[in-house]
């Protein structure tokens, strides 16, 4: 039955190629959506995970925040994400704004809803005020719980290692599914 097997080979290669292309398209689409989000929302991190409880009960650890940034001035009451050179950005509410008449630069003070004190002690280089340039975005929307996956992966190093082992199996599983469900 040698000649049957010879005829199977080119079809097999075509199948693998088309599935590789499908996978590539899925990954490219995800990248396009992510970059598009960055562009549309004007923020380098359009989606962030809440890591601490300082904005409870409004935001809890593991919630996801959608950010948007534009040139509108920062005003009291807005919930902003800022990073003035720290490891992890902070999501807190603006409680004071002092905007200068000529330069339009503003001194800003923030505070977590659940904290007793404002953030002055947290600002880097003993700054007394936060500058607008450190603000990465304003929180405009919110999804509960979904961010826990990211927290688990960063908090527990073992799971972090496993994700490298698991990922190829997941990919193979997906490819396998494609093989089973493909028309050819």
């Amino acid at each position, binding site marked *: 039955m040698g000649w049957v097997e010879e005829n199977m080979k080119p079809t097999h290669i075509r199948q693998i190629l088309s599935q590789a292309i499908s996978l590539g398209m899925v990954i490219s689409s995800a990248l396009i959506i992510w970059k598009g989000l960055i562009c549309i929302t004007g923020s380098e991190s359009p989606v962030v995970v809440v890591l601490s409880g300082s904005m409870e*009960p*409004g*935001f809890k650890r593991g919630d996801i925040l959608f950010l948007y940034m534009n040139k509108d001035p920062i*005003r*009291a*009451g*807005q*919930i902003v994400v800022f990073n003035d050179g720290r490891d992890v950005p902070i999501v807190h*509410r603006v*409680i*004071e*704004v*002092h*905007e*200068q*008449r000529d330069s*339009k630069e503003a*001194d800003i003070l923030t505070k977590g*809803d659940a904290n007793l004190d*404002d953030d002055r002690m947290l600002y880097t280089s003993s700054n007394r005020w936060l500058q607008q340039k450190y603000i990465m975005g304003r*929180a*405009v*929307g*919110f*999804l*509960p719980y979904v961010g826990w996956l990211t927290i688990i992966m960063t908090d527990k190093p073992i799971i972090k290692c496993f994700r490298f082992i698991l990922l190829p199996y997941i990919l193979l599983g997906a490819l396998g599914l494609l093989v089973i469900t493909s028309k050819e």
Partner: protein
Amino acid sequence: MNINWFQKQPKGSDEVSLTMNISADLQSLFTWNTKQVFIFVAAEYETRKNSLNQVSLWDAIIPAKERAKFWIRSSNKYRFVDHGKNLRGKEFNLTLHWHVMPKTGKMFADKIVMSGYSLPEEYI
């Protein structure tokens, strides 16, 4: 919704201490998707150097519709300190902001502005 005030005690940079009566009915903000409403009162004023100063004086979280109609009398929770000594005789607005935080989805906020307040010409 109304707010009144009483005292003023500055030292160093100008600082004001005031007492407010706040009555509000925010029940209409609550829907099935509302987790809480964050409200705060801020003073807004201009100075020679700054076109806008906003200082939050008091805030609260309303966790449910039943608590959304209230009357409270309180002195300012947060210190009202100026970036200088500009507060004598200063006119300012008091704004009440509300920030509706949903169980899921888009947050929205709004405010009302009450103008016409002013501080005494001399320190008390």
